[in-house]
């Protein structure tokens, strides 16, 4: 087991090094500031994180990170609060599914970017950005929850009914635990998508900065080593968030199987 982990880490490290070499070769071949070499990006990343330098918009990197994480977690929490019950009821009730499906299926493909004018008009700071993240996170949560409810083994439902379970008992004792793995999968995907929406979300004009905002302002003035550094930070933080959710997902799946 330990050996497997070591091999996995080793292969991961080698592929990462290989990726950096490819990136460096590509950057030196193209020779354009639009694709800075990894060394320049690393330098920018270090000056942002280690020295926490203030940028030309007057924000520290810690401001950008905390603002984005706050917005994403806020939007994600709202998406979970709305998405899980909606998904459970939609999957459980034929009537609710008939009513909700057309609305969900029409709104779901609309890109979060298209909601920006609406968000600016109807929500103030920070709810306009939170709303964009919410839009990104809520649909994967709903869809996965619905799929989880629909995938419940009918034998389990029939057995519970035979044993005299009421509708509410059936819901809390069978439906909820059985669909828990799908719910957590949906939440994990929702969190990832919500995090991916952060650049679009922070286009609405934010007071407290944010990683998406940072990328936009650096792009605006052509500081692409900082743009890439911001992109890498978004990637790393997103990876940590999703890995945490995956861990919770595994724990919950084990509980659901018991």
């Amino acid at each position, binding site marked *: 087991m330990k050996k497997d982990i070591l091999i996995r880490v080793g*292969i991961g490290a080698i*592929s990462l090094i*290989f*990726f950096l*070499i*490819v990136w460096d*070769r*590509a950057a030196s*071949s*193209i020779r*354009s*500031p*639009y694709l800075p070499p990894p060394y320049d990006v690393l330098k920018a990343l270090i000056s942002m994180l280690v020295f926490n330098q203030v*940028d*030309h*918009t*007057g924000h520290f990197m810690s401001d950008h990170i905390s603002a984005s994480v706050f917005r994403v977690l806020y939007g994600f929490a709202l998406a979970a609060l709305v998405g899980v019950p909606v998904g459970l009821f939609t999957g459980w009730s034929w009537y609710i599914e008939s009513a909700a499906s057309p609305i969900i299926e029409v709104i779901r493909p609309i890109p979060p970017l298209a909601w920006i*004018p609406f968000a*600016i*008009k109807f929500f*103030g*700071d920070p709810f306009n950005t939170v709303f964009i993240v919410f839009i990104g996170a809520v649909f994967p949560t709903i869809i996965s929850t619905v799929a989880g409810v629909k995938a419940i083994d009918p034998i389990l439902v029939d057995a519970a009914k035979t044993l005299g379970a009421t509708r509410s008992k059936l819901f809390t004792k069978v439906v909820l635990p059985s669909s828990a793995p799908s719910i957590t999968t949906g939440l994990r995907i929702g969190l990832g998508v919500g995090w991916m929406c952060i650049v679009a979300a922070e*286009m*609405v*004009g*934010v*007071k407290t900065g944010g990683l998406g*905002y940072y990328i*936009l*302002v650096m*792009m*605006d*003035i*052509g*500081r*692409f080593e900082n743009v890439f550094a911001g992109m890498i930070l978004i990637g790393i933080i997103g990876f940590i968030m999703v890995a945490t959710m995956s861990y919770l997902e595994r724990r919950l799946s084990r509980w659901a199987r018991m």
Partner: protein
Amino acid sequence: MSAVASSKKQAIIIALVLVLIALVFVFQSGVLLPKPEVAKPVVRVGYLTSDLHHLAYFVAKNQTAGGGRSFFEEYGVNVTDAAAGGYANGGVEMDAFAGVQVDIGYLGSAPAISKHLNAGVNTSIVAQVNEVGSGLVVAEGINRFSDLKGKTVAVPSHSSIQYFLLLTLAEREGVEIKDITVVDVAPLANMKIKMEKGEVSGFVAWEPFVSDAVISGVGRLLASSNDIWPHHPCCVLVVSNSFAADHRDLVVKFLKAHVEATDWINNAKSNPNSTEYTLLMDIAVGFTGRSREVVDSALKLIDYRFEVDEAFVSSFKAFTEKLIQYQIVPLEKLSERGYGDIDSFVSKYVNKIFLEEAERS
């Protein structure tokens, strides 16, 4: 782990390694590099969406303004919009220059400087488009600049001339900029919405967004940009250096049309009762999608100029110094791009030769 699963894993790893090796060779051979398109006799022109400062382009394209054939046609220049409806901002337009999608473009001085120095976009400034033409709009209850202390003010970006206008005014009025929350808002149409919602107490924008907010009753003009920084540089005509090297004659002809269009605008503006002014309004309304009242008011704040004179060079230099002072352009970028100092940058980046030739012939 079964032998089948293990060999599957190995196959995937080998495939991944092969793909990565292939990518290295592909990049080295230059297959994936963007190939500069073969220059066509049609000039691809960039401009910003609904930016009234760029009116000269639309006048130069208009056949009625040119007396039957457009100024561009008169000088034998075929033009096409590089992007339908224009670019969202000058930074994106400079990226399009870098991607060899624009030959000549109308955009602000700030992105023209910052993207050239920071990102090495190979361009030069060949003429002015306008000077001034922005303003500070404030919400109800703001009677003087100092009332903005503790409030939020929107600007297009922290690298725009509008942000520096705000800094200049704050300094003049003895207000520390840290006492104002400055927020970047783009597209500019969102500034009016944010003021209506009470999210911002002021904004600095270019026309017609200033007049639009004032005429719709959302805010009032506290200071025009000419009040804040007289004759400040604004939009410029930028040319791709590779395009200019290959099509020198086209750049000169384009500038001739630009000069004529600018003169025509100023002539029309000098007589608001003339048919030329009515036509100017028609062109501006069509281009910006704003009402005649808004356009009429906006035109009064903009000074259309093409000249690259000492006054422009001096204010352009002052603006470059500010961009360096505020770390938007790090000082070392000057030497990285082959400029000894700011004077050398200004004298080389602002290329008067084409305009002088256009005015001579």
